């Protein structure tokens, strides 16, 4: 009796499953409750985003980028707009640059709140932390609506600036929000970080060693939790990130717990950045004059930013016409998802769920 022969069972997790963050299917091979193999199946939400991008003209693409990672629309717009500006060599006004930073960092807070909230929800907290987090997201989307007119699909960033100046009430409310964020995060941490069950569940689950993370091309909090302090905001500062003082949070082990802690630490840092940006916000114009169409020079460009989920890059090829010749997105969720089978093998089925939650994917971005 050296080994008991057991039979594996195959389970289809998804496309309709409560915790696959959208329409995502996993084919799990289980030995009892232990995961032997995982095969992710993506593409249920595919909607020809890149092809549509080639049909639209350069300006018309911004509202479509909102639909990529619908949790953090501002970051998507930011990446696209920066890429086009790099291609066409447009310099937005100073005030617009600061406004962009404020929006994008607020977006990072929102995204991490959603990520942490859903992770805890998948741990079985019955929506409580999620509702607390959603409440704070609500405050941010209110700020978005106040400024841009739409909560989830703001279409706020323009090529060469932002679509409208900040409304009067924005500054005091944003200041109040940013001041309140650390208190809220403290409360969230008091709620669950020290919780024995959470510690038990997350510790040493889904470990991704740094070298493996790099090999898989993981970026964002996933990579930083593995102990690689790589952040594009620091590594190759774009826009005006070199003017702000902030730290990169890095984990030590690379498990789910580290990702949770890294996200929480990043929220604090983002609040710090917004505070500095609000302090230094200059007066002046917010956009270069608006046009219906414009033709960037021929050439190609790749621009990447540190989106909340990782490296978000736009590769654009221009043939000098009104439309992009090629419009390619390097989506962080899609790349980060590749490491899922590696992390899941040997764990229990309940761990698969929290590992997915800790990667923080949005299917809109994975499938495009």
């Amino acid at each position, binding site marked *: 009796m050296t080994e008991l022969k057991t039979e594996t069972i195959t389970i289809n997790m998804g496309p309709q499953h409560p915790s696959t963050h959208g329409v995502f299917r996993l084919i799990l091979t289980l030995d009892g409750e232990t995961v032997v193999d995982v095969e992710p199946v993506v593409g249920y939400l595919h909607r020809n985003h890149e092809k549509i991008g080639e049909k639209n003209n350069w300006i018309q693409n911004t509202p479509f980028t909102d639909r990529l990672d619908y949790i953090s629309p501002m970051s998507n717009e930011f990446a696209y707009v920066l890429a086009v500006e790099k291609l066409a060599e447009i310099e937005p006004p100073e005030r617009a640059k600061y406004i962009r930073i404020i929006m994008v960092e607020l977006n990072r807070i929102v995204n991490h709140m959603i990520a942490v909230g859903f992770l805890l929800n998948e741990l079985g907290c019955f929506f409580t932390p999620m509702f607390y987090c959603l409440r704070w997201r609500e405050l941010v989307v209110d700020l978005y609506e106040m400024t841009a*007119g739409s909560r989830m*699909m703001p279409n706020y960033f323009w090529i060469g600036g932002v679509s409208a100046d900040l409304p009067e009430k924005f500054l005091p409310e944003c200041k*109040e929000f940013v001041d309140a964020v650390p208190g809220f995060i403290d409360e969230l941490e*008091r*709620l669950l970080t*020290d*919780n024995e069950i959470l*510690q038990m569940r997350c510790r040493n689950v889904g470990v991704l060693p740094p070298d493996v993370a790099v090999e898989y091309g993981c970026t964002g909090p996933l990579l930083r939790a593995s102990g690689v302090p790589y952040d594009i905001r620091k590594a190759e500062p774009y826009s005006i990130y070199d003017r702000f003082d902030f730290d990169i949070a890095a984990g030590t082990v690379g498990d789910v717990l580290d990702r949770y802690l890294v996200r929480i630490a990043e929220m604090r840092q983002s609040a710090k950045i917004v505070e500095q940006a609000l302090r230094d916000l200059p007066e002046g114009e917010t956009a270069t004059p608006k046009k*219906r169409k414009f033709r960037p020079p021929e050439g190609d460009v790749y621009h990447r930013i540190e989106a909340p989920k990782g490296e978000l890059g736009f590769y654009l090829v221009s043939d000098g016409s009104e439309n992009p010749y090629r419009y390619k997105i390097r989506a962080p969720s899609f790349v980060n998802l590749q490491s899922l089978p590696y992390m899941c093998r040997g764990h229990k089925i309940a761990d698969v769920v929290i590992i997915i939650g800790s990667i923080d994917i949005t299917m809109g971005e994975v499938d495009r």
Partner: protein
Amino acid sequence: MLGFGILKGMSVTLRRFVDTYVGDLGKFPWRYRSRPVYKRMGITERGAFTIQYPEERVAMFPRYRGPLMLLTDPEKGITRCIGCGLCERTCPTESIKVTRAEEKVDDQRVPETYEYDMNTCMFCGFCVQICPQDALGHSPELEMGTYSKGDALILNLDQMLELGRKHAPGGVWPLEKEAEPS
């Protein structure tokens, strides 16, 4: 360790539990405010944050991007739209169709038909921003639900003008400018 983390967490939830009742006391006896409230909830305010929708209605932000409306010039009494079709060409989802009328009214060109298809509209707001006459605006309408998609959600010229007269009598958008005395 030993459940102290659990107890700490439970103290947080208990506090929230009590806070909602304290918040209710603050609203006593008007639990449901019947007038629209501008602020959905305070940032530092505690307590239940749901809005009891049919009773409590939140006023939309002035810049809220709802369905399109055509603005009327209050002095002339006709629409500002000259039917140039720039909105039609800039629309990424091809939701707008405009034709220009042959004869002018009050020395101004006017549209003959205007068809706005809300089924495909993505509310990006490009048409409003591009309009050379500032004749388009977003109405703060949010209860546009119908029982069927299709024709019910396609607005014609008259309906859009009606929306404009209803929500922006001053004929300007964003609505925050409307409030300013000028």
